[in-house]
């Protein structure tokens, strides 16, 4: 199981702020993405603008995601 958190415009696009994905094996973030898209197709158009964090730290698409991890879907930040 992986917990997916969504923020800002990504939460809007998905229609949810949080969901869980069944995940029994270790994957890269890049291999996890199709599962996210599949659950929430509204995310697809914003793909190129998104960043990701695994367990609270920015992660690249080839970083690993293991069962129990927390994955955050981050639109372009706009603090300040």
């Amino acid at each position, binding site marked *: 199981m992986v917990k997916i*958190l969504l*923020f*800002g*415009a990504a939460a*809007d*696009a998905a229609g949810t702020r949080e969901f869980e994905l069944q995940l029994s094996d270790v994957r890269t973030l890049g291999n996890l993405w199709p599962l996210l898209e599949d659950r929430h197709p509204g995310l697809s158009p*914003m793909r190129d*603008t998104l960043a990701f*964090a695994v367990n*609270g*730290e*920015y992660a690249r698409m080839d970083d690993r995601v293991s069962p129990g991890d927390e994955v*955050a879907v*981050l*639109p*372009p*930040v*706009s*603090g*300040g």
Partner: protein
Amino acid sequence: MISAAQRPDCGAISTFIGTTRVDESSGASVEYLEYEAYRPMADRKLEEIGAEIIERWEVRHVSIIHRIGRVDPGGASVAIVVASPRRGPAFEASRYAIERIKEIVPIWKREVWSDGYVWVGSQVDTRPLSHEV
């Protein structure tokens, strides 16, 4: 925040306050701003920025506060206070902090208008198309 930065070994305190600016360019106007954060990561990134500053500049004190939730027009959303023995590093570090916040801290701003809202920086909004005219 400012008085906590006053130290006998420092001669300069540079403060930056980001306030929610309201452009009345279109017909409708912004009623308020709402900030959302990925909380534990945002707090950690703010601390990282403070650590980067202490490492790069002759700075003795940094404090950064970012508001989350609703902020009214003209209200303060972020405050940065940097104290240094000299004014050059104080200004540079303070400027660096706000640039870095806008780059790496997972916080998102939503403009709430009378007719919908806009996620700033995401080109995603719920307002009717007319406002683009």
